[in-house]
């Protein structure tokens, strides 16, 4: 196994080669039970506590298809503008590896449930966003595999391991595989297109409510197929990079594979058709096993299951359940909020679209809703390494805080402390305001006392203001804000100060 490779700088690689991309995305469906048995699918359960004879592959057990999984897959296919098969079968994919106790995986082969669709994705470029249509080859159903730990080795990887330990909780969870047709002509945009496609797919799955699409938990995973060719030549040999488990990694995997293959081809080498493994820490991939040929999987129709033949009426019923899709929603909100492409992109990148929409629906002004979610709250989420939606702050709470600002009870600085308290789960907005003693000091007596203290401490500044240098007032206002730990209305302090000194603006 080789771990390092010479690379060619990206721009130089793109000057000589055209990248051809293909993306395979696996999505774990959010059903309650597994694909072919009634075992629970809850993430994070103790190993091998969500297993039964079917998903353990015990002799005599028989799989039965989960109706919800079929419905979810058809809805995904419809949302991706696919043709839904009127009749299709499951197939056995035979391979020898302990992640599937049956020694085969039930999948679909030449009869996918959905085929020939497309997804339009918005790709950010230096010249503003551009729309790229990614064509979908197929959407098919299969079951997820168990999780292996390689024990005894120092690295947790198989090399050097003494033995492997297997948890079959994940084995049999419904999995949908979405395969693109080859994506050509994207040139230097290839990494950004790949990332934008996976992001759009994730948003689509969320909107359809068919999966929680958490890449970090593996409920959405991406394999990147990439080859390079010189303009005018036929396609080159492709590699398949697995283990790409974040949006950023999708982009980096494409980027680094272009650099690696370009160096290889330029130096007279050739690309080996193989599976490569992406490493989050280095942003590079290493060689894995040579890919088995499809015929080695000895696919054949699954004899334990009968065909799936969705009627037109059922398909139309499911089509009627499709929600507003993310791209249509973005266009609508952009118009409603009166924002430009870049502002929209900021909100989308922050994962704040739904939150901002809900906050506005709760009665908050559009600018204020956007300000909190893409400013203070996004920074906090980034610092904590969590998704904005998982921060623990709700649109309703943002409304409560905004109402307090509007009434003069809080200012922005104090509001930030309220959000800090909400993230730390210190209670409701009212409880945090009370327990942290957060309230704008509106008592004139207390403010005047603080103003007098500040004037006494800076008599030279006081004289300047008396002489009409009103701009010097900032220093006194600042001192008062500091003395009240930010709990004063700065404009009010300024007005009181000038009145005190008998100066007008």
């Amino acid at each position, binding site marked *: 196994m080789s771990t390092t490779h010479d690379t060619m700088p990206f721009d130089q690689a793109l000057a000589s080669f055209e990248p051809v991309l293909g993306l395979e995305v696996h999505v774990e469906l959010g*059903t*309650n*039970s597994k694909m072919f*048995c*009634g*075992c*629970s699918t809850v993430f994070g359960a*103790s*190993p*091998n*506590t*969500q*297993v*039964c*004879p079917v*998903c*353990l592959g015990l002799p005599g057990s028989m799989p*039965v*298809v*989960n*109706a*919800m*999984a*079929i419905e979810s897959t058809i809805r995904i296919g419809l949302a991706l503008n696919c043709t839904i098969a009127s*009749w299709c*079968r499951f197939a056995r994919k*035979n*391979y*020898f*590896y*302990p992640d599937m106790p049956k020694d085969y995986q039930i999948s679909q082969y030449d009869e996918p449930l959905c085929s020939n669709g497309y997804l339009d994705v918005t790709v950010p470029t230096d010249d503003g966003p551009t729309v790229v249509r990614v064509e979908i080859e197929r959407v098919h159903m299969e079951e997820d595999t168990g999780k292996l*730990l*390689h*024990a*005894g080795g120092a690295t947790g*990887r*198989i090399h050097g*391991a*003494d*033995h*492997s*330990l*297997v*948890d*079959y909780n994940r084995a049999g969870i419904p999995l949908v595989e979405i395969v693109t047709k080859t994506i050509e002509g994207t040139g230097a945009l290839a990494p950004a297109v790949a990332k934008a496609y996976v992001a759009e797919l994730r948003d689509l799955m969320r909107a359809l409510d068919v999966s929680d699409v958490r890449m970090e938990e593996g409920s959405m995973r991406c394999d990147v197929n990439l080859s390079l060719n010189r303009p005018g030549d036929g396609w080159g040999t492709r590699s398949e990079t697995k283990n790409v488990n974040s949006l950023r990694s999708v982009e980096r995997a494409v980027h680094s594979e272009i650099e690696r293959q370009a160096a290889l081809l330029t130096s007279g080498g050739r690309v080996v058709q193989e599976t490569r*493994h992406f490493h989050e820490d280095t942003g590079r991939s290493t060689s*894995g*096993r040579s890919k088995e040929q499809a015929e*080695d999987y*000895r696919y*054949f*129709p699954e*004899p334990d*299951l*009968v*065909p*799936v*033949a*969705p009627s037109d009426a059922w398909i139309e019923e499911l089509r009627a359940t499709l929600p507003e899709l993310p791209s249509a929603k973005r266009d609508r909100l952009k118009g409603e909020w009166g924002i430009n492409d870049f502002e929209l992109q900021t909100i989308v990148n922050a994962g704040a679209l739904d939150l901002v929409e809900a906050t506005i629906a709760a009665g908050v002004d559009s600018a204020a809703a956007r300000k909190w979610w893409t400013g203070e709250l996004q920074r906090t989420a980034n610092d904590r390494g969590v998704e904005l939606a998982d921060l623990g702050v709700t649109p309703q709470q943002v409304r409560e805080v905004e109402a307090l600002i509007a009434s003069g009870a809080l200012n922005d600085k104090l509001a930030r402390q309220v959000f800090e308290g909400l993230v730390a789960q210190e209670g409701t907005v009212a409880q945090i305001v009370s327990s942290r003693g957060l309230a704008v000091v509106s008592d004139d007596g207390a403010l005047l006392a603080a103003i007098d203290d500040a004037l006494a401490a800076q008599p030279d500044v006081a004289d300047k203001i008396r002489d009409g240098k009103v701009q010097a007032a900032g220093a006194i206002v600042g001192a008062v804000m500091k003395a009240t730990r930010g709990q004063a209305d700065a404009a009010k302090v300024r007005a009181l100060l000038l009145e005190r000194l008998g100066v007008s603006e």
Partner: protein
Amino acid sequence: MTISRADVAHLGRLARLELTDDELDHYSTQLDVILQAVARISEVAADDIPPTSHPVPMENVFRPDVVVPGVDRDEVFAAAPAHEDDRFRVPRILDEE
């Protein structure tokens, strides 16, 4: 012969079976007899008869998405050759990953 020794060796490798030269001869001959028997079906099946993938003509057999309790882990492990840390313990698999 419709199946070669090389084919049998390849199938053996996919199934992680170590086959001796004698076994390759033995299984090639046996499998060939089976394949010839199956091939006779093609002689009577016209082009308009699709291969059977299921003996009963049924479609759309589904179950509702309802969780039913599985089996107890200790019971499962009692039937397994080896386990460790609440997981099945298996020999390491070479030439993979």
